[in-house]
């Protein structure tokens, strides 16, 4: 086939923009936080809950959620070392260049939720996209009470530990209540002296003792696949409508724009592309589309 052309075409939706790594912070032994700035100096507008595709030229691409808030720049990504690509990225340093394309996905309906209470339920790495919501809510002040219920395996696994601990102690002035559930005992937890806010158990245990107006509250969930049904059961038992329960989901994604087909979920009556129709879905969506959770 002749007629081949090659060019630096910025309109190609698969072409990434170059970004410089400004800062690399080790959050846990497995997760690092990358602060990035685009070399082209252009804008990057996104909503909490959206994601990007990171392009390591010559190695490949992978999707990752934005963990910084649109109210703050530059953008940040929390990356767990979990495979070939992320292992390479963990070896990258400040000043190195990566490609970024996006933002992709629908994100959380932040405007629709204004004025209401938000309950953020995070499990493990699910803290990353919800941190974007958390800071957006606290920075804009457009929401009533904000809860962060965060389940972690160990003390060392807590993502954004300083922020989480700070808000746990001083969040009340921002109408923010942070609670933490952990699986593995650690002396740090016993010295926290945060009675009622830290407990050994699972994330659903953190609902105990909390009262909220189910007619005026949205729940936002992100965590490992197993976590959703337990959290949803708790919310439904309390009378939260399936339309007010938002979940952000993970799938294999190659394109991010509804072409490559890997993230397709559903049956003959309803098929969704997680990358394009999601990654944020309501529990009602999950009831209408089999296989979402």
């Amino acid at each position, binding site marked *: 086939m002749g007629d081949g052309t090659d060019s630096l075409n910025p309109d190609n939706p698969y072409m990434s923009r170059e970004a410089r790594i400004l800062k690399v912070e080790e959050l846990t032994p497995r997760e690092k936080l990358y602060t990035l700035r685009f070399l082209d100096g252009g804008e990057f507008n996104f909503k909490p809950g959206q994601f990007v595709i990171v392009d390591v*030229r010559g190695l490949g691409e992978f999707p990752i959620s934005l963990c910084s808030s649109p109210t703050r720049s530059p953008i940040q990504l929390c990356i767990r070392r979990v495979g070939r690509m992320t292992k390479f990225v963990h070896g990258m340093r400040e000043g190195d260049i990566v490609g970024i394309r996006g933002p992709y996905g629908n994100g959380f309906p932040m405007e629709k939720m204004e004025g209401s209470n938000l309950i953020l339920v995070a499990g493990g790495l699910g803290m990353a996209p919800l941190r974007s919501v958390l800071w957006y809510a606290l920075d804009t002040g457009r929401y009533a009470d904000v809860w962060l219920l965060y389940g972690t395996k160990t003390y060392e696994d807590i993502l954004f530990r300083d922020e989480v601990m700070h808000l746990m102690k001083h969040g009340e002035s921002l109408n923010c209540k942070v609670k933490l559930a952990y699986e593995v005992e650690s002396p740090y937890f016993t010295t926290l002296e945060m009675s009622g806010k830290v407990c050994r158990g699972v994330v659903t245990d953190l609902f105990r003792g909390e009262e909220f107006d189910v007619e005026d509250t949205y729940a936002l969930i992100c965590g490992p696949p197993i976590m959703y049904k337990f959290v949803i059961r708790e919310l439904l038992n309390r009378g939260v409508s399936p339309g007010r329960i938002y979940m952000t989901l*993970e*799938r294999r994604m190659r394109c991010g724009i509804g072409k*490559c087909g890997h993230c397709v979920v559903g049956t*003959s009556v309803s098929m969704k592309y997680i990358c394009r129709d999601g990654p944020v879905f309501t529990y009602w969506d999950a009831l209408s589309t089999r296989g979402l959770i």
Partner: protein
Amino acid sequence: MRHLKLPSENFSEFVQSLRELGTVYAPVKKGGIHSFQEVKGADEMDLHYTRTMLPPKKFFLKPRETMFKLADGAWREVIEAEPIVLLGVHSCDIHALRILDRVYLGEPADPYYKARREKAFIVGVSCLPDEYCFCKSLGTHFAMEGFDLFLHELPDGWLVRVGSVRGHEITWENSRLFEGVTDEDIARFREFEEKRSRMFKRAIPQEGLADMLDLAYDSPVWGEYAERCLACGNCNMVCPTCRCYDVCDRWTGAYEAVRERRYNSCFMEDHALVAGGYNFRPTRLDRFRHRYYCKSYFDPSSGYNCVGCGRCDEFCPAHIEHIRVLEEIRPG
């Protein structure tokens, strides 16, 4: 719709006139099967075929293609698109291209697919069904759009439907090759369509199908078929609407790399595998069921993702038949 008649004796010259639009690809018989190959004249092609093994999607979404080349640390877009004429495309495959269009031309459009689609001239041809065809039951047996010209076989030539301005222009420029349609031609056209309509042996029972399949999510039949299925992915490769692709960066030299994409199959174990090892479709049953649901998804705006071409049945090494699966899965 504009209608013309192309007499048999002018067909060869018509093919030569198409060559001015681009490289002509038409069904050619090779061994026991037909496939779209480059042709230089009418004598090389065989328009009396039931189906090619690979559908016309191979011209727009290539089995393997380079998206970008790495040069001086930056990606350079590589788009290969040549003007082509696809001569002899069946109605089902034209419908399938419309389904691919909705995915690949939907915003944001895929620039690779789009460039090739815009440079392609599509000439449809009428056909008669064999034992695998079930397009009629899906309404994809007759194309009303998605072609530039459509040829319907007559005893002494072709009744031509003109489907686009480009199609009109080529017939206009070569108007000496065409005649007006007579009452006799219309009668033969009707005869052909009625005969064809009676020949279909298979039909998808459509009534409430989407909901019934959804309700049969836990049917034991899925498991029986998952046992028989070899998970080879043949059905994906030959399907005119299967469109999953995977992407891979490959070093072609010490300082040169390309980003390539190639067909992928939802029967492969890693199709829904995410980093960290979690697989959203871990068993063959999950993957088998996923393919059938994907094909049978009824999109309110575009209908099913299956056009009834019969390729997956004909080329399945385990002799699994699409309609039979759906009939056995449906409760009752």
